[in-house]
């Protein structure tokens, strides 16, 4: 009798666990580290509180890693990931290769619609071809754009006016470096590849340079580009010695610790704690704006991250449900307030509560309106690394600005030829 009951109970348990196991869905997200990761975690936690039967595995990877891992996985169609983050200039490869789930169809299937609250320039990048008629393959996870930060208190102390042009910046960097002890005039990311190139691009563009001309030939060694790079190297003289190894953490920590006068390339997600006196020694002292101008207008770099569902995912419906939750107004607001992640919806940018916490947020919308997107090519990773490597060689004095850019131009021409 007892034996029988035990057996019965056991089989009941098995059946029950089988049922609940069936209902349990585990979504694997190939995400980013740092504040992007924190924001994703905030959203995931909120979602799990509502949907206890969905479990998550949030991978917090570096930029290179997330690209490498998702490309090899999507190419082989293993279906390890249910949601992936994609850096904007690389999204074309994913769209063209047919690796992503058609979100228009998912919206139709679920009876929801894509709302018009998303910033429209950003939304176009999520479609392929890149216009309002293209098919939707991703949604903007973060409305990122590069910004310019400087210490208003130090500028006032030395009678410097708010920088309008890059030349003003150079003067200010020099003054602060020489006069304020323990503070570097300027600090930017100098690690080769993506970081240094990203730091350079706002200057590159506003000096009137561009990657290619109208006929698609590379022009990164144009006189404007050379002038921009020379200027960039001049600026670097007033930066910390460790610039060639400095990445996000070092620039941001320097800014927060008050040892940096000007950070010419900062990202909204780094700045969540800038006015928090517990974390920052410069609360209330840092002014954040769009980049200065030069011969061309201010040219901030658009650096949005897309979120998409791989075509090979085995949990598309669950992934889609989370995706709509993640990009909803409420969740974006939550991520802004809790993790400082810049939103991609107009309504969130205008939210009063957010403006109260981050008074500098209008600078983002301002910058986004002026923003320049990086060229969309299948070979961005290679171009970025090549050019970013050569610029660093110029920075550490192994090549002159001309040499570095001539070589970069020749290499980019070769890359584009394949």
């Amino acid at each position, binding site marked *: 009798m007892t034996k029988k009951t035990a057996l019965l109970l056991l089989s009941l348990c098995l059946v029950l666990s089988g049922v609940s196991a069936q209902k349990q869905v585990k979504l694997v997200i190939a995400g980013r580290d740092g504040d992007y990761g924190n924001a994703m975690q905030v959203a995931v936690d909120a979602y799990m509180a509502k949907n206890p039967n969905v479990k998550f*595995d949030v991978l917090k990877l570096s930029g290179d890693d997330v690209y490498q891992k998702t490309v090899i996985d999507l190419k082989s169609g293993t279906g390890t990931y249910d949601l992936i983050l994609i850096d904007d200039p690389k999204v074309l490869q994913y769209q063209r290769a047919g690796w992503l789930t058609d979100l228009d169809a998912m919206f139709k299937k679920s009876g929801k619609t894509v709302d018009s609250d998303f910033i429209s320039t950003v939304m176009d990048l999520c479609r392929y071809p890149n216009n309002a008629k293209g098919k939707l393959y991703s949604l903007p996870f973060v409305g990122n754009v590069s910004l310019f930060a400087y210490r208003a208190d130090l500028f006032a102390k030395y009678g410097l006016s708010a920088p309008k042009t890059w030349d003003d910046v150079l003067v200010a960097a020099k003054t602060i470096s020489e006069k304020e002890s323990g503070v570097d005039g300027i600090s930017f990311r100098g690690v080769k590849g993506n970081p240094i190139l990203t730091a350079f691009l706002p200057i590159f563009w506003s000096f009137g340079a561009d990657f290619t001309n109208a006929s698609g030939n590379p022009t990164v060694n144009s006189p404007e580009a050379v002038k921009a790079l020379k200027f960039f190297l001049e600026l670097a003289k007033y930066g910390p010695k460790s610039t060639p190894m400095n990445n996000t*953490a070092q620039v941001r920590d320097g800014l927060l610790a008050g040892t940096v006068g000007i950070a010419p390339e900062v990202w909204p997600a780094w700045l969540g704690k800038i006015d928090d006196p517990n974390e920052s020694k410069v609360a209330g002292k840092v002014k954040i704006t769009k980049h200065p101008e030069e011969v061309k207008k201010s040219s901030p770099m658009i650096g949005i991250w897309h979120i998409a569902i791989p075509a090979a995912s085995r949990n598309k419906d669950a992934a889609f449900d989370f995706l709509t939750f993640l990009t909803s107004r409420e969740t974006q607001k939550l991520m802004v307030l809790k993790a400082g992640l810049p939103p991609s919806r107009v309504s969130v940018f205008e939210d009063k509560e957010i403006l109260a916490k981050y008074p500098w947020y209008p600078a983002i919308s301002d910058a986004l309106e002026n923003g320049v997107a990086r060229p969309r090519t299948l070979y961005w990773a290679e171009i970025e690394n090549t050019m970013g490597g050569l610029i660093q060689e110029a920075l550490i004095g192994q090549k002159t600005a001309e040499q570095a850019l001539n070589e970069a131009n020749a290499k980019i021409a070769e890359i584009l030829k394949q």
Partner: protein
Amino acid sequence: MASYVTTKHSPLFPILMIVILLITLFPIYWIVVTSLKTPVENILPVPTLYPHKFTLDNYQKVLLGGSLRNLFNSIFVTAVSTLLSLAIGFLAAYALVRHKFPLKFNVVFLVWIIIVKMLPPVVLAVPLYEMFSKMHLINNLWGLVVVFQVYTLPYCIWMLFGFLKTLPLEYEEAADIDGASRLQIVRLVVFPLVQTGVVATAIFSIIVAWDEFLFSMLFIRSPELQTLPLAIVGYIGEFETLWGQLMAISVLAIIPIIIFVRFVYREMASAYSLGLK
């Protein structure tokens, strides 16, 4: 006993010994101390030599982050791939020592072993990746066990070949006359004679497998399947390096080795005094 070097009795000798130990052990000490400091203390402009504010937070975070799982994965993959390599490597090495295969096959095989041993593994990574992904061995610990053979098998064959070569034929001939089967000879006569060599080989194979990073990075996706080196790299981020946690997980990676090291010393010393080639 004629001492080879006379400096041993000079007062400099113990000092030199201490200096060498300091240089060797200091980084290891630094791993431990850093793991016991708070995040703030770890980025002070002037580093502190010992934790001024002792904390176990880093360990707690690392353990909650699933590092025991990583430890287990590392141990599993290392142990299984070593055993596999030893088994097939031992048989192959024995065959190469005792049998002359046609067409100079012995030489060809050994030359290839050496070349593979010297070849940077990244060279093989792409085709192996494509093959493994067709066979569903990607994101799978067994896949790692198999791919680790690229490192461990040449190592094992090469070292065991060296040991077996020094073995005189007489024992086997005697056993053969006594009517033992070939397999019995290998198992009961040959194996016990080169046991020390097998252990030494195992140690090297373990060190290599324990250290493996490239294929693990390329073949493993899910965090719960990561081995320790992967988990460690995960703590060096673009946005911030959590030095304390990084060092805490490193300590976890060191512990099994400390347990192992006495044994390694004994075996290695005896292996190399055998005049291993």
